[in-house]
């Protein structure tokens, strides 16, 4: 009896230990997770304890002053101390995010979450994300002093990590039951690749090839023109390029391969984009240039941005940083301000590769068999067997698709040539911009920036405004890289790059302002080959029309423009739909909805119903037009919204208007009627489910935690208007990730806000405290400290001392 009791209690004890110490599916190890000594209860704090810090490697003490928003203002005696402190302070607030994003970039999420991430990880490896990061590491060595700064940043991060015991780990580590690893330079390079992939990882070459092969060149050119019939480019059309001596490669005579491809890798969100604009002294209410920027990205918590002031005796810079990269990315100092929007150029091309044998040891190039290189990718899977994937490399780049990954044919592959693989010194550009004093410094700083190409906007205290479209752009022959290329033909290789000086740019244009909103960089007169690979056609026109509308602009005008909800797309199609649709076919309840949308003023404001009706109508009509594409098993893109509308208005009897599954032949006006009826059904079924139909209720914007918008750590149903294609580009889970307005007075006055908070800890009151301010279209008044004197906006200060 005694023995039975003993054994039973032993088994129960070990059973309960195992049960509470083990992660079961998505349930964290509950004993570990909930115990108050080292579990999540230790994360129940708001980042306002300020213990003294000592870190090794500092040469002098560094002071960190936190303002009421928990924005750190760091004062160091030299650059290396500054970046070391930046690393430490950033990790203190954002460690989990820093590591998670770089794990994602490197294709290592399976290590953390198990085999659910295997497809994603394999895609990352096949895209050559690590290959690109390693090439950047090599380029960094070329610039004296650069590596030292990044090492200081790395050591700062690691100094923080080394202070942690398991009870101090950010809550996500406890939830997923794993541990942080040390930071490396490669992780910084991987973070930059993460951004590069997000912003320059898109292309449609294979989708275009599918379309071309299926529908022919004439229809392709109608639907995917190099330029739309309206164009208000980044570089004003008045710019004359005729004084440049240009050497553009000739179009090769041989034809390119036409292959059908399906199941392609997912693409970055096409809405990744941004707005920026600046007015010069003549157009500014005060005579000081004013600059604004708002990068549009996925809306996540912790936010992609972390705000900071970084000061040494030589420089003083404020702005937002990317946790994991050193320096300020978008910001200002006493002399200049700068911002970025995505340049959206086609810098990713695909080459069809012919292998000699199934072993893929050699591939055809210029009539010879060249040797390939192979990289064995080891994908560790939590709770499973390690997955090995061999990725073949040619001189073009990694063979992303082949027989073992979504390919077609044992001896065929598709290699990627991508500016993201070129290496580059984006960090050097940031370091130089942070300390730039004038236009010349800005121009010099940009030279190092390779990818993702950006529209760098600039203004200075001296009164200059400028915009450079900066990146390393291949100098292509007409049509090169729009479709699949022949990997065996040397003439299909990139033939060189557009010289730095010929990257399109403008300084102090006559119109008195510069702006960009991911539209076409130039008009057709630009002497290098540029085609429309996803340019936006609406925000830019609203912005430019606004700045053409009057003489002087003030800060309130800038705020109003950030929050501008005017839906130009709707304004260009809706009147035409209302005019050409046969309304005699409508029922009484449909007519009611029609009357509702007739009175809409084209503003996507949250309390209106018009934008919801429009949105349903637009989605329905677009899907009817492109039913041929939607129902095809091949991967093909819908033509851009602008061109869809162009077709509806100008080619109402085009073959694509016909709905395949019906017997009669539809025209545009039939589609308007059918789609309107479908939209009314959508609206009514929402009503029946008691879901509201105001734009705010329909769109229900949210900011989601990086772990698939884990509801507990996310913010839902935010009252903010706008949509994609609108200057206030806030859609459901995407939009302005940082709004900044800077007037170059002395000292500069700045406003800024992002949908998040400085702390990455969901237990902190600083985790999401900017979200409501952001949604309301308001800003934080930025504290830009000119010195370390007593300041009543500082809530506490920390001194970081050198550790002996």
């Amino acid at each position, binding site marked *: 009896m005694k023995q039975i009791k003993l054994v039973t209690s032993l088994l129960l004890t070990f059973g309960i230990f195992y049960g509470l110490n083990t992660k079961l599916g998505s349930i964290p190890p*509950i004993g570990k997770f909930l115990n108050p000594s080292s579990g999540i*209860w230790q994360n129940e704090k708001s980042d306002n304890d300020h213990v003294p810090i000592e870190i090794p490697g500092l040469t002098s003490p560094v002071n960190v002053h936190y303002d009421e928003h928990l924005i750190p203002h760091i004062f160091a005696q030299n650059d290396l101390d500054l970046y070391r402190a930046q690393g430490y302070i950033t990790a203190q607030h954002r460690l989990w995010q820093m590591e998670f994003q770089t794990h994602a970039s490197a294709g290592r999420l399976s290590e953390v979450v198990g085999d659910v991430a295997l497809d994603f990880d394999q895609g990352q490896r096949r895209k050559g994300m690590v290959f690109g990061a390693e090439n950047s590491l090599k380029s960094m060595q070329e610039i004296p002093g650069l590596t030292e700064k990044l090492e200081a940043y790395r050591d700062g991060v690691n100094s923080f990590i080394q202070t942690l015991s398991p009870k101090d780990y950010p809550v996500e580590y406890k939830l997923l039951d794993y541990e942080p690893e040390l930071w490396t330079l490669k992780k910084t390079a991987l973070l930059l690749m993460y951004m590069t992939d997000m912003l320059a990882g898109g292309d449609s070459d294979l989708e275009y090839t599918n379309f071309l092969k299926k529908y022919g060149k004439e229809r392709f050119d109608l639907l995917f023109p190099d330029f739309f019939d309206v164009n208000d480019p980044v570089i004003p059309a008045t710019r004359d390029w005729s004084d440049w001596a240009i050497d553009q490669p000739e179009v090769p005579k041989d034809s390119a391969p036409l292959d059908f491809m399906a199941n392609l890798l997912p693409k970055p969100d096409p809405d990744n984009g941004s707005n920026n604009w600046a007015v010069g002294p003549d157009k500014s209410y005060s005579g000081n240039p004013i600059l604004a920027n708002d990068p549009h990205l996925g809306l996540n918590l912790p936010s992609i941005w972390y705000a900071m002031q970084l000061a040494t005796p030589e420089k003083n810079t404020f702005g937002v940083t990317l946790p994991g990269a050193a320096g300020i990315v978008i910001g200002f100092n006493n002399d200049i301000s700068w911002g970025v929007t995505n340049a959206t150029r086609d810098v990713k091309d695909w080459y069809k590769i012919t292998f000699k044998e199934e072993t893929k040891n050699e591939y055809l190039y210029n009539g010879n068999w060249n040797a390939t290189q192979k990289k064995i990718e080891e994908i560790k899977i939590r709770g499973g067997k390690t997955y090995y994937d061999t990725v073949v490399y040619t001189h073009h780049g990694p063979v992303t698709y082949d027989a073992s990954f979504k390919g077609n044919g044992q001896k065929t592959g598709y290699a990627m040539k991508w500016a993201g693989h070129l290496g580059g010194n984006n960090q050097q550009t940031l370091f130089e911009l942070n300390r730039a004093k004038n236009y010349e410094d800005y121009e010099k700083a940009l030279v190092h920036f390779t990818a993702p190409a950006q529209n760098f906007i600039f203004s200075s205290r001296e009164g200059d405004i400028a915009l450079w479209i900066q990146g390393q752009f291949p100098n292509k022959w007409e049509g090169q890289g729009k479709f699949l290329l022949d990997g065996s033909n040397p003439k299909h290789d990139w033939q060189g790059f557009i010289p730095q000086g010929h990257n399109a740019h403008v300084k102090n244009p006559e119109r008195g302002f510069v702006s960009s909103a991911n539209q076409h960089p130039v008009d057709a007169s630009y002497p290098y080959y540029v085609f429309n690979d996803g340019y936006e056609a609406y925000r830019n026109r609203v912005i430019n029309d606004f700045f053409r509308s009057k003489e002087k602009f003030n800060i309130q005008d800038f705020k109003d423009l950030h929050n501008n909800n005017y839906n130009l797309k709707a304004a260009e199609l809706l009147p035409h739909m209302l005019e050409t649709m046969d309304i005699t076919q409508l029922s009484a309840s449909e007519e009611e909805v029609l009357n509702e949308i007739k009175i809409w003023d084209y503003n996507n404001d949250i309390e209106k119903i018009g934008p919801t009706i429009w949105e349903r109508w637009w989605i329905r009509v677009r899907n009817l037009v492109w039913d041929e594409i939607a129902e095809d098993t091949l991967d093909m893109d819908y033509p851009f919204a602008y061109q869809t509308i162009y077709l509806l208005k100008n080619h109402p009897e085009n073959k694509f208007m016909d709905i395949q599954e019906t017997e009669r032949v539809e025209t545009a006006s039939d589609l308007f009627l059918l789609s309107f009826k479908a939209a009314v059904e959508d609206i009514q079924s929402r009503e029946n489910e008691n879901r509201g139909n105001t734009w705010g209720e329909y769109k229900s914007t949210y900011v989601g935690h990086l772990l698939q918008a884990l509801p507990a750590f996310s913010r839902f149903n935010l009252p903010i208007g706008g949509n994609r294609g609108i200057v206030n580009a806030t859609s459901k889970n995407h939009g302005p990730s940082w709004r900044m307005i800077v007037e170059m007075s002395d000292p500069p006055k700045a406003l800024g806000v992002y949908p998040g908070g400085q702390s990455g800890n969901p237990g902190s009151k600083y985790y999401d405290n900017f979200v409501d301010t952001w949604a309301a279209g308001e800003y934080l008044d930025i504290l830009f400290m000119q010195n370390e004197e007593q300041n009543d906006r500082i809530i506490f200060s920390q001194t970081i001392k050198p550790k002996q």
Partner: protein
Amino acid sequence: MKQFVTNFILTLILALLFSLFLPWWSVMVAAFISGAIVRLKNVSAFFVPFLAIALFWSVFAWLLSSANDFILAKKIAVLLPLGGNALLLILVTGVVGGLAAGFAGLFGNQCRAAISRNDK
């Protein structure tokens, strides 16, 4: 009754002490040791350490959380899911710790019984 109190206090003290340098299962070690030292009969061998640790964990959790307006507790109570109720999460925390300690205490008592001739 005296043994109840002795076991209860000893479990608490040991748990506090061990939690300074051991992971979460320090409470199991504490309950095991005090169970092996202070003899308890029948269900009390389970419930005395259960109550001691349930009290320890829930009070500790409450102290940490109330100092921060229960911000995180409310979110974790959505995650688990407990309807966002922070107090319920504190209760669950206590029960989890209590269960671990209860079984370890029971096991401690049985070990004591196994090696002690006086225990019949």
